[in-house]
């Protein structure tokens, strides 16, 4: 594998990991969406680099996959942002309180609606 490809493969893995870390530790929904997009970027970079982008025009199938992926990512982000606005309207906060694990436990015991 040529050095350029190595650089970008490592970059891709790093972005994916940074995004995953950010998603799991951050409490702001908006920031969690940013990190999901970071992870997506990492996957896209990996696809294109492994598809031979470092040497010449990359494999067209991964390119089409990434293009589709970008549009899906913006769609999901847009819907998530709309949902976030609704959540803020109802709760007055832009965070889902606590973290996922504690929430699951409280939800299990919580019976008021």
């Amino acid at each position, binding site marked *: 594998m040529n050095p350029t490809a190595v650089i970008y493969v490592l*970059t891709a893995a790093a972005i994916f990991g940074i995004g995953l870390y950010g998603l799991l530790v951050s409490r702001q929904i908006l920031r969690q969406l940013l990190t999901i997009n970071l992870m997506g970027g990492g996957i896209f970079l990996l696809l294109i680099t492994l598809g031979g982008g470092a040497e010449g025009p990359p494999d067209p199938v991964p390119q089409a996959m990434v293009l*589709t992926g970008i549009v899906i990512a913006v769609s999901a982000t847009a819907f998530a942002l709309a949902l976030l606005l609704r959540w803020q309207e109802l709760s007055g906060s832009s965070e889902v309180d606590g973290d996922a694990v504690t929430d699951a436990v409280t939800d299990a015991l919580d019976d008021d609606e």
Partner: protein
Amino acid sequence: MIGLAIDSVLALGIVWMALQTVRSDSLFQAMLMFIVFGLLMSLAWARLHAPDLALAEAAIGAGITGALLLVTWRRLQVHGPDDSNGPRLMTRWLALPIACASALLVIIIGWTALQLPAVPGTAGELTLQRLEDIGVSNPVTGVLLGFRAYDTLMEMAVLLAAWLGARAVATEFRPGVLPGPAHAEVPLVGALLSLVVPISILVAVYLLQAGGSAPGGAFQGGAVLAAGGVLLCLTGRLEAAAQASALERVGVILGLAVFSLTGLIVMATGGPMLALPGVWAIYLVETALLLSIALTLVLLFAAAPGLRRAP
């Protein structure tokens, strides 16, 4: 050698921006870092010989997503308490193991990916061999509207679902969410708009027709056209409306409907499903896709069921 240096700097920049997106204390800064991350990614696509993706990333990944994030942030500020600088992380004792697990995953992915041998006879190589059968010379367009047209069709359904979903959750119609006419007074803005909006239409049309043989296509064109629409929203030329007009609804489903109906008609006349008969059909479908993509993105940006011209 210089190439390698550029790639290294670019890669470091990308990783740095990703890190800042996660680490910075202010949410606003994090979003700016994310937008810069998108721009650097589009440079990386250019370096990786993928100009189609560079265009798409700049227009959609950084551009439209960035605008969506910023406008949502603004709306959150207007309508609620400012907690964008509040507690950022969950409990610290969990953060460390998560960091370790993420790092481990990075190593596994990196190591795995570096082990991959080049496989002969991939679907991509077949695509390049059979490209004449589609009738376009840009292989990416060939895959998107030829060999794997079904993916593109389902992707349009995803975009439609995003709009339907946003419409479903936006029950309360929030006036004053867009900055409104305050900006329209500025004489410079009017001059800019009268130049930029026509140019965005021109560029969209250019990208659409170029897509057959050069980088470009319905998605990039649609995003550029949407950028023009976003500007019109931002400057108060377009206002949120409580209901989507019939024309807007037609526009939103146009891409999906034209694409599926073309495929079904071809099938009904004895051809295979979703084989577009000739280049003209590809352009017909792409035009419909472009209009739908642009309109849907603008509506998503406005977070409103519909739009109308400001009085």
